[in-house]
């Protein structure tokens, strides 16, 4: 699996995700600068976390209009898988690759903590190494992770099985206790209709080696390798 990791001014998790990809593929991904309107063809495009353009105007709003994102939109339309993590999730929603928006956390605080996620489906190239209903532990680090979509969009996402992960309690109960940011329906990650684009607020790339405090995120990368190699 050959991957590209985008780099914007203000990205800060591009190295973490590149390392996670290298860990499972043995291959360093291509790092692609935001001004590049064209870059080598890859099996996967990752939009990493950070504070692109200093979160000016709205998180991800400026990055979504950058030359590299115009090319990502073209490739996504051709079916090239795109993974947006944290600020990357904000960027792909602002770019229109996923519906909805990430708003300021309901409690207005930056949250940096391990959270539990319930895997909603194993039927995707991103989640095929997990079991539906499985609970995993990964970290979050964000101030704008409060997912919101209008009622019609939300119903469509739920009906079509486009929810990838939900925040939950350690025992898998999906309720307010496990929700770190006020996200609607406890949504932590979603797919597009074809499940070739996934965005999530938590950082699976930071749960790939025991020294990080957990390895539950590793299967996400292993699953992509299996699906895309």
């Amino acid at each position, binding site marked *: 699996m050959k991957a590209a990791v985008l780099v914007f001014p203000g990205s800060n998790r591009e190295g973490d995700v590149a390392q996670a990809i290298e860990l499972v593929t043995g291959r360093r991904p291509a790092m692609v600068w935001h001004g590049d309107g064209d870059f080598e063809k890859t099996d996967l495009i990752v939009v990493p976390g950070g504070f692109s353009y200093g979160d000016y*105007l709205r998180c991800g709003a400026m990055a979504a209009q950058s030359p590299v994102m115009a090319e990502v939109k073209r490739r996504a339309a051709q079916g090239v898988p795109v993974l947006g993590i944290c600020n990357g999730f904000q960027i792909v929603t602002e770019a229109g690759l996923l519906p909805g*928006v990430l708003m300021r956390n309901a409690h207005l605080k930056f949250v940096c903590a391990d959270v539990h996620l319930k895997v909603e489906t194993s039927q995707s190239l991103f989640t095929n190494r997990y079991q539906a209903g499985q609970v995993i532990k990964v970290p979050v680090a964000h101030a704008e992770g409060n997912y919101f979509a209008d009622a019609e969009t939300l119903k469509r996402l739920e009906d079509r099985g486009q929810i990838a992960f939900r925040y939950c309690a350690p025992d898998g109960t999906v309720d307010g206790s496990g929700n770190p940011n006020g996200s609607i329906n406890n949504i932590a990650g979603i797919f597009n209709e074809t499940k070739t684009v996934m965005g999530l607020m938590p950082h699976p790339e930071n749960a790939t080696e025991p020294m990080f405090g957990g390895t539950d995120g590793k299967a996400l990368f292993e699953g992509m390798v299996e699906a895309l190699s």
Partner: protein
Amino acid sequence: MKARVHVTLKNGVLDPQGKAIGHSLNRLGFPEVGDVRQGKYIELEIAETDKTKAKARLEDMCKKLLANTVIENYSIELVG
């Protein structure tokens, strides 16, 4: 000419920042303050003399970048 754009959260969209501002004002001795909604104000210098054309261009700017219409409304005011 100059354009003034106001971006505000749509009705029904939770505004925790507005709420926090309201609480602070109440605490500071302004009990008359009820619901508070906060937003953004953007001033733009536009190289265009035709108001209709400028308005259409600004609509486009709002939809493409200045506002996220999933959660935000915008209003445009042209000056001079």
